[in-house]
């Protein structure tokens, strides 16, 4: 642990730290553009210059200089000040002064740092360089004249997203950042380059010219587009959520978010259910709340079935369960029937951050990249940085890293192919990831558990058995008992008189022909189309909610805006309905509800990783057949919110279906 002196302050820094990190540890702010904690070091912006002794008598780039014993670092000397002013002046030579029309204005590193470290005025009166715009797809807007060539986007694309489609072409003054042949960047994570860009060269296309950062109300929330539970910040103005940005959480999403997380928010203002409806003579008619409640009451026999969709929060599921008072609960909309007697056997036990340390990974019927893009970046990190080996059973698909495909025959689970068996022999931290979609095949769950037992995937300090869900509500639902023995078909066979559908849009509604279908949700999608009564609820941005992500992490999001029109928060709907049905629920506020919920399921009362222990259910391990396909057919259109989003529709058309769009002439 070397000791260094920063501006007269002696501190000890971890071995391998850079001078920049040492300065930060000492509490000194070092301006930078190209350096980023999660990317490799480039050292090409020169903004982080400091004076270091011993060394050459000139300022040095602190980001690329290792801190060594006895260094004396100065960050406030006249030399450093002059060097920063010089670098800033060079950077601004070709940077246009178009801040008033630039979307980055107000949250721009260059703007802030030129105020803090620049000279204040320019001495340059030659012509500036101009660069043509590049096309990078429907998410990223480019104004390349503003680019200062920090190459953060290039490094992100290669190191995190795993797609080497962004690069720097040309050299010297002619160097330009571009996507390959200006084609759309085919990554689910392309939106992150917008956050990474320290200037306004890469900005968000759907959010272009919408708002200034200081106008926005910022609300911490949890994403519900997939089961990762990305920590996000919803930026809203008035009643509209204008954008979603990731918050830093090293255990979950680091500081990334998928494009769906970021840009499905425009779907929150389209196709919304803002009035209660009741089906009269085969047609849905807008009614008052009282009338809608009466329609439900007419079919109320003291209990009801509840089917939860993919995006509901635990509070809603708990309130519905409390009202319905039955054992007819199901959350696995598409009809999965896997065993849930042990939650640890359907959990992502390795944890999202932990999977980075795995050395051999077997994927079973999981298209990780589309089902959980941010888990995929972890696996890709394990492969790229730590040399992990990945094997996969299922149809071949591009996961951005090298995968040894073992074919789509599931029998490989029982009879391990030699390559995999050899790799497992020496593996210290082996893991299996069973896709939620693969669980529909008979025996896969049992065979995977047997596989885990055979190769000791669960050992001291390491649990390598993982099931990967892709619905934000899944783990919370399972904790609240939303799993009916035999799945949705068995539940439908009981022919419930009344059933609540909590934002359930993927259910086969024909199974419930004789049931009064009450849809409690926020979008006019599949569920609303088949419903007999619609009670308009709140989307994830409009309610405070508890979500459990695929690794069993309990997280809370807050309300950013109010639901539109007559729509109400879902738990309040059930509370009001309970009065009408004569079965008053014992909570009048969200806090009281949460207290009740914590009483029923204590783990839901504590934020953080829930402890499921480890127990294996006894399941048949005989398995046969082939994995036909993956459950996520179209990454951009997986739920009601993104189906209502114009941005997601455009992404789907262009990136999944390969449609070509002409850029409008300016």
């Amino acid at each position, binding site marked *: 642990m070397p000791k260094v002196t920063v501006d007269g302050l002696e501190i000890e820094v971890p071995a391998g730290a850079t001078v920049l990190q040492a300065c930060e540890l000492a509490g000194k702010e070092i301006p930078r553009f190209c350096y980023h904690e999660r990317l490799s070091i480039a050292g090409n912006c020169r903004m982080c210059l400091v004076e270091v002794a011993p060394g050459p008598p000139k300022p040095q780039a602190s980001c690329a200089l290792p801190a060594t014993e006895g260094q004396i670092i100065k960050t406030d000397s006249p030399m450093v000040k002059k060097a920063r002013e010089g670098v800033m002046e060079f950077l601004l030579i070709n940077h246009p002064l178009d801040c008033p029309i630039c979307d980055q204005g107000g949250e721009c590193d260059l703007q802030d740092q030129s105020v803090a470290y620049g000279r204040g005025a320019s001495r340059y009166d030659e012509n500036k360089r101009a660069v043509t715009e590049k096309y990078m797809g429907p998410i990223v807007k480019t104004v390349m004249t503003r680019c200062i060539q920090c190459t953060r986007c290039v490094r992100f694309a290669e190191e995190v997203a795993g797609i*080497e489609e*962004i*690069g*720097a*072409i040309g050299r010297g003054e002619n160097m*330009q950042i571009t996507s*390959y*042949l200006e084609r759309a960047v085919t990554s689910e994570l392309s939106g992150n380059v917008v956050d990474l860009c320290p200037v306004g060269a890469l900005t968000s296309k759907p959010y272009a010219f919408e708002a200034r950062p200081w106008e926005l109300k910022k609300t911490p929330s949890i994403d519900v587009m997939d089961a990762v539970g990305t920590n996000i910040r919803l930026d809203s103005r008035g009643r509209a959520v204008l954008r979603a940005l990731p918050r830093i959480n090293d255990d979950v999403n680091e500081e990334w978010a998928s494009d769906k997380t970021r840009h499905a928010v425009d779907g929150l203002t389209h196709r919304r259910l803002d009035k209660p409806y009741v089906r009269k003579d085969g047609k849905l008619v807008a009614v008052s709340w009282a009338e809608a409640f009466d329609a439900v009451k007419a079919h109320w026999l003291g209990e009801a079935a509840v089917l939860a969709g993919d995006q509901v929060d635990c509070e809603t599921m708990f309130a519905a369960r409390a009202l319905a008072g039955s054992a007819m609960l199901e959350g696995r909309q598409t009809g999965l029937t896997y065993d849930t007697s042990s939650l640890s056997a359907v959990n992502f036990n390795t944890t999202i951050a932990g999977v980075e340390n795995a050395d051999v990974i077997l994927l079973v019927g999981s298209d990780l990249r589309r089902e959980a893009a941010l888990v995929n970046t972890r696996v890709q990190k394990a492969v790229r940085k730590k040399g992990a080996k990945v094997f996969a059973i299922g149809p071949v698909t591009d996961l951005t890293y090298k995968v040894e495909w073992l074919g789509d025959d599931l029998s490989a689970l029982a009879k391990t192919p030699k390559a995999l068996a050899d790799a497992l022999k020496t593996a210290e931290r082996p893991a299996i990831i069973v896709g939620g979609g693969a669980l529909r095949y008979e025996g896969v769950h049992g065979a995977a558990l047997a596989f885990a037992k055979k190769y000791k995937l669960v050992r001291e300090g390491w649990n390598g058995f993982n099931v990967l869900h892709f619905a934000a509500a899944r783990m919370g639902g399972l904790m609240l008992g939303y799993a009916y023995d035999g799945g949705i078909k068995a539940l439908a066979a009981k022919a419930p008189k009344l059933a609540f559908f909590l934002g359930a849009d993927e259910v086969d509604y024909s199974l419930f022909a004789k049931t009064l279908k009450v849809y409690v949700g926020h979008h006019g999608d599949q569920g609303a189309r088949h419903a007999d009564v619609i009670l308009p609820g709140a989307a994830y941005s409009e309610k405070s909610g508890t979500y459990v992500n695929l690794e069993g992490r309990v997280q809370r999001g807050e309300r950013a805006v109010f639901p539109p029109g007559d729509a109400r928060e879902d738990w309040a709907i059930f509370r009001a309905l309970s009065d009408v049905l004569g079965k008053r629920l014992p909570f009048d506020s969200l806090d009281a509800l949460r207290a009740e919920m914590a009483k029923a399921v204590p783990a839901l009362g504590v934020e953080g990783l829930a402890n499921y222990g480890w127990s294996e259910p006894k399941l048949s391990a005989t398995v046969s057949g082939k994995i036909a396909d993956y459950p996520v057919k179209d990454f951009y259109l997986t739920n009601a919110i993104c189906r209502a989003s114009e941005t997601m529709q455009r992404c789907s058309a262009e990136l999944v279906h390969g449609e070509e769009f002409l850029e409008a002439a300016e």
Partner: protein
Amino acid sequence: MADAAHIPDEAETRAKWGNFAFSPDTKKKADIYIGRYPAGRQQSAVMALLDLAQRQVGEETKTQGWLPVPVIEYVAQYLGMPYMRAYEVATFYTMYNLAPVGRYHVQVCGTTPCMLRGSDDIMAACKNRGLVKGATTPDGLFTLTEVECMGNCSSAPMVQINDDNYEDLDYDSMTAILGELADGKQPNIGTQLPGRHTVEPYGGPTTLKAMVDKNHDYRGEW
């Protein structure tokens, strides 16, 4: 507008070069280059392979060759690297041609030493022969490019035409060289001054004269 050279990626380029593959001869050379690097590091051979590909394109088109996008992609594929990475290399180095050139690629050095020694006359000679900077003559013979220092300052001014250097030029010798090339003849390469061989001092040494024939110890004279 300081914009990089535009690589044509039109359908016709794709149609013409989409099936590009190394000839057996080129392939043999390519594998030698790849063999010089440890297994798994074959990408290091990208520059040599791009050059080979450019030469093969040159042979096929009877020009100096260039790198159409499908050819760059072929090389990238051959080395198992992403297209973008090969594309970056091809755009970085000026000796990879990103647009078709003529049979003779005339690269006139215009950097300071050559300019002081009269590279303007060389440019004038080219211009009078109908060469235009950045373009190919209508007969497809010459493409003229102005380049930066090629490291022949002691025999400035110089031009590089295809793989050969022509040095110590003036207006007349440059005109003669272009004329000979147009006639299908091979001019003398290297210095054009009579009596000069390489870059030795012209007209005999002016310093260290005692060293010409034998070793001489100057130390006593200081």
